[in-house]
């Protein structure tokens, strides 16, 4: 009997020593999530003249780049409606060349004039509250610890972008004209 007790005790100790299993959903960093959202946004947007082409879809980051290698890692080898994705980084507003999606970080929001991104065929994604009022198309926001977004429908229309209703229904706020 003491032996059985010893075995039980040993088993108990082993159980204690066993480290808690790592949670499957390891904390995803904010910018990993935002990178995934950028990719998913593009799935639900129709660019003017984008149907049927297999030309690469350009993701541009203007100004400060908060993603680091995350965006490249996430988008590597991915396609959107059979279009490969290229990533370009522009140090400032003057360096910007035509891109399908332009991301403006919170840090660069003030330094980048709206003419840079408020153009036909450009899906402008920002992360500040004022970004939509400045003519941006999509702005990230946090709801508790969840990443959400709002859409400026008027800006999308001006940019001749068609956002799918599947995307719009998830927007926390859809801004119409003049806000």
């Amino acid at each position, binding site marked *: 009997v003491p032996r059985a007790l010893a075995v039980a005790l040993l088993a108990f100790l082993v159980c204690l020593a066993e480290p808690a299993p790592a949670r499957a959903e390891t904390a995803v960093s904010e910018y990993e999530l935002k990178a995934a*959202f950028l990719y*998913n946004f593009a*799935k*639900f947007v129709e660019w003017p003249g984008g149907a049927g082409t297999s030309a690469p879809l350009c993701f541009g980051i203007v100004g400060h780049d908060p993603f680091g290698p995350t965006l490249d890692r996430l988008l590597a080898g991915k396609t959107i409606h059979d279009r490969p994705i290229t990533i370009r980084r522009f140090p400032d507003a003057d360096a910007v060349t035509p891109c399908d999606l332009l991301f403006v970080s919170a840090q660069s929001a003030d330094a980048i004039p709206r003419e840079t991104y408020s153009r036909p065929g450009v899906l402008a994604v920002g992360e500040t509250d004022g970004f939509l009022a400045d003519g941006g198309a999509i702005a990230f926001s946090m709801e508790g610890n969840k990443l959400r977004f709002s859409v400026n429908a008027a800006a999308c229309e001006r940019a001749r972008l068609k956002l*799918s209703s599947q*995307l719009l229904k*998830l927007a926390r706020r859809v801004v119409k004209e003049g806000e």
Partner: protein
Amino acid sequence: VTALRDLPIRRKLTLVNLLTSGMAVALVCLAFFAYEIAVFRRDLREQTATQANVIGYNVASALLFNDPAAAATTLAALRAEPAIEGAAIYDEHGERFAFWDATAPGTPDIPERIARRDPTSTFGEGHLFVARPIVADGKHIGTVAIVASLAGLRNRLVG
């Protein structure tokens, strides 16, 4: 048997005729019931599968953007269909993402086995289980599962 043998031939003939007619009617009735059941099941399976596909299409963006509340809202549209008892969305890892249920919360026991990837539909215990994959841009991103009641069948056959 003796009583039967002693019957006049005329009565015997009548009896035999009655018996064969009765059996024919019973067989027809049986066939009719079987047909009704088969048609009902097929229709219910097809309707539910269609609804699962529609829900799957409409819920894909909510899955991609990790918005369970929006997925639950989409599922709640199933309330328009009285036969449907409940529905659930599972993510690509088989974890439950969103849930909707026509009766009290948690009543229909949507079994974990329909969280599998392969599209299935099975009948059991008065319910129909239908599971369909959710695909976005060619990638499997989750599963939609619906439980429908077979109570309508009883109503149709009895009422």
